């Protein structure tokens, strides 16, 4: 007789509290494995805390996003936002999937080149581009998105010096009905500054205006502002065509799509309130398709979304260091994960899930990080099961920004591991050591000796 599949025996106490009007019931299943690998084994092999990235989720999410846009618009290109997560392994997954590189500093520019990205597929954004890097970007035919007039003048000079026409776009900021309005980057639409910049480029003839770019905000919980933004960029494109008989090649809608994390203070989960890729795609593509741009001239649509593409693929695994009772009677649990590793805990209610089955008794708990610093708080107040010292936890949806904005503060940064599509783990960034830091430091000779 064939043996039946085995499921581990399990018993739970039935929790029959008085029916309230909805407590914040937490996710009551432990996360015991990620893409087929046991959390315990991952921590056993790579230590705690450790960042885990799922290649499967990265590719799947990107393909969902792509499908949302390509089914609605003929020409679409994603460009990976390096600042969201610039681990080489991560960037290369996106490049394998056809994403270009979107960088905002010389460091990121070099990183993209070193990953083997052809300069013409690098979009160079942001207010900080040195003359040295602009020259490099011009030589390599990169797409330079102009942020301010000083940069435009510099590009004009470089164009003369190198006798080469840089490929440029201008970044446009605008009122799309959202608050806060981002007006510090690029040229304003409403006051005519953007049109002014376009005219100077077109009349100056030193730069090749290939695109228009905007990036209207971050973590936008409504899709409609994108429609307004796409419409305004399309109007600029039509004006350029009418006045100069010049067709721009692409419209870059930037990023800002929200991930499914729940912002602090929200009752309903981000998974419900956040627009999905279809909502954003519908807004953007309808803004373009319903514009006055002639169907034959529809520009390439570029998207630089970062957060919404990678947040779900990242996990942070950690361990309970201690439990203690606070003076007001509340319970607190101290983890080896602090804000040094989880920068996004300043604005998300991160979901912290035990990595092993737990009792259904929960208690109001403050969850703290390990830093000797008062603001190191992951969750102020959450119904949390009683974990023991050395129990493990998994924090999901942390793939965006944490591996770039993390702080080397008080303690060293841990390993980062990628689980490939076959369920095999790879170390993709080593943990920092004392030697790494010492190697950067220089102590003047006379400070080498002391006596206590």
């Amino acid at each position: 007789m064939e043996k039946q599949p085995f499921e581990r025996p399990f018993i739970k106490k039935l929790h029959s509290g008085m029916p309230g009007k909805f407590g914040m019931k937490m996710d009551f299943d432990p996360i015991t494995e990620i893409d087929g690998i046991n959390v315990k084994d991952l921590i056993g092999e790579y230590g705690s805390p450790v960042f885990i990235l799922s290649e499967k989720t990265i590719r799947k999410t990107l393909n969902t996003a792509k499908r949302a846009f390509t089914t609605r618009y003929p020409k679409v290109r994603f460009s990976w936002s390096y600042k969201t997560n610039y681990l080489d392994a991560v960037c290369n997954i996106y490049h394998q999937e056809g994403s270009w590189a979107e960088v905002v500093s010389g460091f990121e520019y070099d990183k993209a080149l070193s990953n083997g990205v052809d300069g013409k597929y690098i979009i160079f954004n942001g207010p900080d581009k040195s003359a040295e890097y602009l020259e490099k970007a011009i030589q390599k035919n990169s797409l330079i998105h102009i942020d301010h007039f000083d940069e435009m003048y510099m590009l004009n000079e470089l164009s003369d010096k190198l006798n080469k026409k840089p490929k440029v776009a201008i970044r446009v900021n605008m009122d799309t009905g959202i608050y806060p309005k981002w007006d510090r980057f690029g040229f304003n639409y409403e006051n005519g500054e953007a049109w002014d910049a376009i005219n100077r480029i077109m009349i100056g003839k030193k730069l090749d205006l290939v695109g228009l770019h905007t990036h209207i905000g971050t973590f936008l919980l409504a899709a409609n502002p994108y429609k307004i933004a796409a419409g305004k960029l399309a109007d600029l494109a039509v004006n350029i065509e009418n006045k100069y008989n010049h067709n721009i090649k692409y419209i870059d809608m930037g990023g800002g799509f929200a991930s499914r994390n729940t912002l602090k203070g929200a009752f309903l989960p981000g998974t419900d309130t956040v627009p999905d890729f279809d909502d954003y795609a519908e807004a953007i593509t309808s803004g373009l398709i319903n514009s006055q741009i002639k169907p034959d001239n529809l520009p390439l649509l570029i998207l630089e979304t970062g957060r919404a593409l990678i947040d779900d693929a990242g996990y942070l695994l950690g361990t309970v260091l201690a439990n203690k009772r606070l003076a007001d009677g509340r319970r607190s649990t101290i983890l080896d994960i602090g804000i040094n590793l989880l920068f996004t805990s300043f604005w998300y209610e991160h979901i912290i899930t035990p990595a092993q089955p737990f009792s259904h008794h929960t208690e109001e708990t403050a969850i703290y990080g390990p830093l000797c610093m008062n603001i190191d708080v992951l969750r102020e107040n959450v119904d949390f099961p009683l974990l023991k010292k050395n129990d493990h936890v998994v924090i999901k949806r942390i793939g965006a920004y944490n591996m770039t904005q993390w702080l080397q503060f008080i303690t060293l940064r841990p390993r980062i591991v990628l689980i490939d599509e076959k369920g095999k783990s790879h170390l993709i960034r080593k943990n920092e050591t004392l030697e790494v830091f010492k190697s950067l430091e220089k102590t003047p000779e006379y400070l080498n000796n002391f006596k206590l």
Partner: protein
Amino acid sequence: MKLKKNIAVSDSGFIFDPNSGDSFSMNPVGTEIVNLLKQEKDSDKIHDAMTKKYDVPPDEFNKYYLDFIQTLKQFNLMENDD
């Protein structure tokens, strides 16, 4: 190692402990083990029966079994060991 006598187990895996008034629910494998315990089978017999029926290496079963028994003890469903 015995299950408390007055514990009632239903086919659906529901347990009511008349001592404490607590109720519990189990998955089918858990229910099967508890039923074997109720029949006063010893650990060896339970191991045999379960590893024969289910696709699980004996060592692995043992790990889960001990953990399960530990949980039953925590929930005060077992007689105290002599």
